[in-house]
């Protein structure tokens, strides 16, 4: 279990008014200590991107040792981001505490960690010398060795899959032997192993890195298969694709039916108007069959000839009364006497 020690704001804040502000702006998110194979330890509290103040680390073991400053700081571009402890500075099974000073100018802030048990922060090295042996009845036996000095304190996990599988299988192993019950000789297997401190010696979730893999399966078969796939992927498939493309192009060019389906002709309406332009010389009205008088009526300076229509007096009918002399034409009251002079409009009406 990766212990992420929580920081408590210490009662030793020098300036209470600015303390929270400084804490909010520059406080590290937490310290993480890891013992690598019990050979050395690092306690990291941040990265260059998140830290801006100057940091110093002090540590001690409760009821045992005086407070000591870190002798070897780990830096990133001039900013201290962690502390390195060598083996002589590490004591397990003693509560271990850390105090970090963050200073910016004349202001200083202190962060005190909870007590840590270093035996619960051990991360062993990955197993080495993975070896596979053929046992009887299609059984494989995988063994390994661990650089960690106390083998009785380790538990392991084995991860494997064959070349025909998609997912990895993982098994927990208490000793340093893993038996694979039934192996398929036509498959090609890959195995990985990693280690962790077991519950007999500590309480941690820190697994080691995966080991260098070991493979099992017929080497010649795998090489032939690889060569086979190489020829398929790099030669056969490209050639087949090119041939198919060529056939399609030839079909397109030679078979108009296919061409028309794939590339339909864009309709050309110009032929419908050949008669308009050739026969009627662009005279739309003539081509459309519009009557001539309608055409004439649309002309802007249209004028119509007046058609004079006159009515001839009948020959055998009664003489007009005013020509006998005995009767004078009655004059309607209010009606002025009609002038007797001739007018061009006498006994005529305008006919349209």
């Amino acid at each position, binding site marked *: 279990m990766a212990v992420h020690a929580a920081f408590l704001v210490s009662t030793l804040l020098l300036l209470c008014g600015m303390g929270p502000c400084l804490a909010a702006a520059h406080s590290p998110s937490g310290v993480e200590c890891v013992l690598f194979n019990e050979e050395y330890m690092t306690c990291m509290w941040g990265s260059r991107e998140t830290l801006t103040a100057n940091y110093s680390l002090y540590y001690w073991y409760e*009821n045992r040792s005086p407070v000591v400053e870190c002798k070897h700081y780990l830096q990133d571009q001039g900013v201290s981001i962690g502390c390195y402890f060598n083996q002589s500075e590490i004591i*397990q*099974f003693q509560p271990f505490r850390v105090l970090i000073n963050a200073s910016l100018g004349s202001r200083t802030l202190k962060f005190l960690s909870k007590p840590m*048990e270093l*035996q619960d922060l051990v991360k062993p090295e990955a197993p080495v010398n993975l070896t596979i042996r053929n046992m009887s009845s299609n059984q494989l036996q995988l063994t390994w060795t661990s650089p960690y000095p*106390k083998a*009785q*304190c380790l538990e392991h996990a084995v991860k494997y899959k064959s070349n025909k599988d998609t997912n990895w299988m993982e098994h927990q192993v208490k000793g340093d032997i893993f038996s694979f019950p039934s192996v398929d000789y036509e498959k090609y297997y890959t195995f990985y192993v990693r280690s962790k401190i077991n*519950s*007999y*010696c*500590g*309480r941690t979730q820190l697994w080691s890195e995966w080991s260098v893999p070991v493979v099992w399966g017929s080497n010649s078969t795998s090489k032939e298969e690889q060569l086979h796939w190489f020829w398929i992927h790099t030669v056969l498939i490209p050639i087949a694709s090119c041939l198919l493309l060529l056939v399609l192009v030839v079909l397109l060019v030679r078979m108009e039916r296919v061409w028309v389906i794939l590339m339909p002709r864009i309709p050309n309406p110009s032929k419908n108007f050949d008669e308009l332009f050739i026969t009627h010389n662009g005279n739309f009205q003539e081509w459309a069959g519009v009557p001539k008088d309608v055409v004439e009526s649309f002309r802007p300076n249209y004028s119509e000839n007046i058609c004079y229509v006159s009515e001839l007096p009948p020959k055998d009918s009664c003489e007009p009364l005013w020509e006998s002399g005995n009767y004078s034409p009655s004059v309607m009251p209010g009606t002025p006497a009609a002038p007797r002079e001739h007018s061009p409009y006498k006994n005529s009406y305008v006919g349209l």
Partner: protein
Amino acid sequence: LSHVMATTFFRSIFWVLPLLLVLSPVNSSSCAMGNKTTIHAKYKNILIHDINELVNMSAEYRDRCCKNKKHENSKVFFCNDTQEIESLQSMACNMLRFFHKQKISKDYRRKAALVSCGTLQVLECKCERHKKEKVCTQVNTHNTDTGSEQSKNKCNQEFCELKENISSLRSCWNKFEKISR
């Protein structure tokens, strides 16, 4: 004659007292120094499971009132170098006194007593106060008093002390397993 007899008598017993002083150890260990291989085997195959269950139970109870508290009996919680068995004995015997603490959950203190008794049994140790062994008899016969059930939300100092005792016992067993082989 009586004078000679008296002198002879005192001479004969004169060496007895120093001999008794030499032979009687200053701190008499109440643990039978059994086979370590057997102890390791019993720890790994039997006791570790009860210890892990007890530690998991500890994590279920709220311990806000336990932060930054120094306990009076804190020296009991140290697992001294090269004296892991004696330290385990001390821790186990100390844990037995919590069995009758009513403010602590019945199941929790019963489990703690079970682990204590198991530790003493594996190490073949006794406690200085023999009354504590009566607790083991009660625990093994599933005879527990009808104490009040502690709510998981309540925190008290006795619970804090027991929790720290359990954590120290677990660490001391880890140290014994890691170092003494």
